[in-house]
């Protein structure tokens, strides 16, 4: 590890590094969400791709996005509770 990380980083440098890591993780997380959401909502809303997105398709996409995020939050909460439950069992 001493090779990978220069020793003697100042406090400010360390803070900056941590911020950068956090930011990169956040960006990757959002990218993952966008990719999956695009794929899932395209599947749900676009049956026959036409020459443009008509208004009902656009409405469907907007609704689908909102529901996908609702679902994400619900899944996240369920998973969090389950991990807690499994920890308590040990």
């Amino acid at each position, binding site marked *: *590890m*001493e090779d990978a*990380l220069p*020793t*003697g*980083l100042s406090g400010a440098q*360390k803070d900056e*590094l*941590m911020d950068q*890591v*956090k930011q990169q*993780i956040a960006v*990757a*997380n959002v990218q*993952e*969400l966008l990719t*999956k959401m695009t794929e*899932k*909502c395209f599947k*749900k*809303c676009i049956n026959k791709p036409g020459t443009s997105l008509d208004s009902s398709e656009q409405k*469907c996409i907007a*609704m*689908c996005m*909102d*529901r*996908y995020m*609702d*679902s*994400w939050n*619900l*899944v*996240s909460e*369920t*998973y969090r509770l*389950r991990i807690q439950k499994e920890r308590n069992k040990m």
Partner: protein
Amino acid sequence: MNFSDSFDSGSSKGGDKDLQDFLMVEKQKAQFNAQIHEFNEFCWDKCVEKPGNKLDSKTETCLSNCVDRFIDVSLLITNRFAQLLQKSGGGI
């Protein structure tokens, strides 16, 4: 948290321990998030028919059951596989 112990040598050199701890926490958070993405993708396909104005209660129940049952299956398979391994004396 034995994982961090293996990096103890770093703590004497310039306080890298802070960074190690930080990275470990971030890694766990990232793994948690990746798992949610996977569950959500899978359970969305199973539970959501047509996206409406809100998730109805039936869909919500389906989503949380989906996550819990998926974990049950994963635990069941892991445990049974371990038993099979044990029975066969470690060779498979």
